[in-house]
């Protein structure tokens, strides 16, 4: 059934963009020029420079005028032979997967929920998700710190006064790495779910009613219809949303950085983003680590991207 069901992209847009013969191909390049120049100057050049510098001994001294020495792969070998760097890589990958999966599962559930409830309930849910999505990250970080605050945080109050767990009265949530990452996950998931839920909901709306009705007439159960029709049909949305979540969760920086500054043990809670930032006085190392992280991201998503390229979903 999955194979015969039209894909969403198939119903919405021609999978092969139409060739416009009236305009010369130069036009296409012309349209790309402004964006390319901007990206090239303000993003591309710094990225290339960062890559080049990753092969140099480049620190504060070099920034103030000392000549930068080429050191070949030294920065890379230094990093890759440091067991701490591997710990952080492992931690980041684990954090990324847990967060991406939890976000997808909750986002998907909420999207399905939105579809099965009345208008009033749906709008309530949508507005609340929207508020969470729209709150600027620094503002929401301060709120979450306040919620989890050791002394006057409402979460400790509820646990100790309402649920009667006295030991939680002055509990510090961020002092233990595991509990730190729990808090970080709650925050990251809270912020990411709205985008996922809205996107999947949007995808669900495109599943043609006739197909569902036909399947129902054929005797498919609700469960069968969901896994056999709905999921395959919204797969393009799911793939892209998941891909974006993996990329974003691997890069997570602000949430971790702010929580660390709130009083967590820094070394035990570093992820790749914060580790790179901590190398900003040794720019060469930061560059090498950024490159390593790119390779890592590509390794984690490469297969997936190839698949999408093949199916022409890109």
């Amino acid at each position, binding site marked *: 059934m999955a194979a015969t069901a039209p894909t969403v992209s198939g119903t919405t847009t021609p999978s092969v963009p139409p060739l416009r013969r009236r305009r010369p191909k130069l036009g296409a390049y012309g349209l790309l020029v402004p964006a390319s120049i901007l990206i090239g100057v303000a993003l591309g050049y710094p990225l290339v420079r960062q890559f080049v510098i990753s092969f140099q001994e480049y620190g*504060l001294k070099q920034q*103030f005028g000392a000549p930068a020495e080429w050191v070949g792969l030294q920065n890379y070998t230094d990093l890759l032979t440091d067991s701490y760097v591997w710990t952080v890589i492992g931690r980041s990958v684990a954090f990324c997967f847990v967060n991406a999966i939890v976000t997808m599962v909750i986002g998907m559930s909420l999207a399905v929920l939105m579809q099965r409830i009345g208008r009033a309930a749906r709008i309530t849910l949508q507005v609340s998700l929207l508020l969470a999505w729209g709150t600027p990250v620094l503002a929401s970080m301060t709120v979450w710190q306040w919620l989890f605050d050791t002394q006057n945080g409402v979460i400790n109050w509820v646990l100790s006064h309402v649920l009667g767990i006295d030991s939680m009265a002055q509990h510090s949530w961020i002092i233990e790495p595991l509990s730190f990452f729990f808090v970080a996950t709650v925050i990251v998931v809270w912020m990411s779910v709205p985008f996922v839920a809205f996107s999947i909901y949007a995808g669900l709306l495109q599943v043609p009613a006739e197909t569902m009705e036909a399947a129902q007439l054929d005797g498919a159960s609700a469960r069968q219809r969901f896994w056999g029709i709905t999921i395959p049909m919204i797969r393009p949305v799911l793939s892209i949303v998941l891909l974006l979540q993996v990329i974003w969760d691997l890069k997570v920086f602000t949430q971790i950085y702010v929580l*660390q500054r709130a*009083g*967590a043990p820094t*070394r035990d809670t570093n992820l790749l983003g914060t580790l790179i930032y901590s190398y*900003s*006085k040794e720019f060469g190392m930061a560059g090498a680590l950024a490159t390593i992280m790119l390779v890592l991201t590509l390794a984690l998503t490469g297969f997936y991207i190839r698949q999408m390229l093949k199916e022409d979903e890109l």
Partner: protein
Amino acid sequence: MKILRFAAVGVAAALALTACSSGDDSPAETTKPSESAAAPEAATIKLWLNGTDTPDALREYLTTTFAAQNPGSKLVIEQQDWNGLVPRLQTALSSEDQTPDVVEVGNTQSATFTYAGAFSDLTSLYPELGGDKLLPGFVEAGTADGKVMAVPYYSGARAVFYNKDMFKDAGVEVPTTLADFTTVAKKLTTDKVSGFWFPGQDWYNGATWIYTNGGELATQDGDTWKGALESADSIKGLEQVQDLFKTATKAPADSDSNEPWVPFNQGKAAMFSAPTWARWSIDLPECNEGVAADDTSDDATAKRTKQQACNEEHTGVFAMPGLTADSFATAFAGGSNLGIPAKSKHQELAQNLLKIIFSADFQNQLGKNGLIPGNTEYATSMGDDVYAKAAIAAALGAKLTPAAENWATVEGDRILEDFFQKIATGADVTASAKAADQLISDALNK
């Protein structure tokens, strides 16, 4: 272009010549340095001050005095946040167009920038600014390869503030030795009250016990640095620290040394240790007159004076005692240095500003505002009240972080915050010290 000139001190002019930017077409570039060398081109120079430690009146004094002494030139003061200062300095100081002309850096950040070559050499100006009378630890932190690159701005010695009523209720006196301090702190501690407010990440105060017991954070051997927390002396101090964490404080392990007067004001702490200017932040409920912060009426001012007097009546202050009676502890000195960025185009004007800052007039004003002036000669300007006495006593023995080129990395990686937090949560002192030493050594010898 109209070029304004005025006579300048020879040394300064000579220095300026070597640092003149190529775009400067004043005759100073072509004439030989001499007593009568040309004055610097009039310009607007930028001074970066961090946080709110420098009072507004002092800022005003600097801008007006500078404008008066340097006709045609102007001083603009830009206030920066301490938080995020390092990345800002890192980028701005490397830009000829953007660099401020004089910057304040934290004393512990100073070494990193001096070794990186971010500052101009001030060695020849150093005697004129005060020479040997400048706070020696700060000068050391601002010196790289024998050249003075940054000079002390002010220091804030730590003193212990205590709630007199709580002392009376618990029947304790001001402690006379460091061991006695722990005993007193324990006696003051109840279910709700911390005898001594000592948050887990507060290594600024924790260092006092290490230093006083003869320990160090790191030591230098030839070209290499080594973490020194696992030395016997440091361990002795750290064990006392852990004892305090365990039995004399209710402060959370995930807090740092910020604003310790808040729990004090709330009656949750009987003692806290902070730079002496913390006196202005004490606001006990029994003294609060309920004046709005922006109320400038005479009535409000009178009430505020009354409030301050009441607060100071209920609050005592002493310098942390040393190992034996009548000695003082070696505390960690807070404070900052001033430097002239090497890329500044207005070296000579910047030096003129430094001269104003190191004038007797300005140094005395620093003292009057509760800051220990960079030039120790003017420390008496702090007055002779209990605060000044405690501050000066504490300052005499105060010590800084190791003057290692990469010390800022230790701070950036928050190694000491992590370490003290571990101690606070009951980790084994020796094992934690060993692990932290390894991290410090790695960071300093990178």
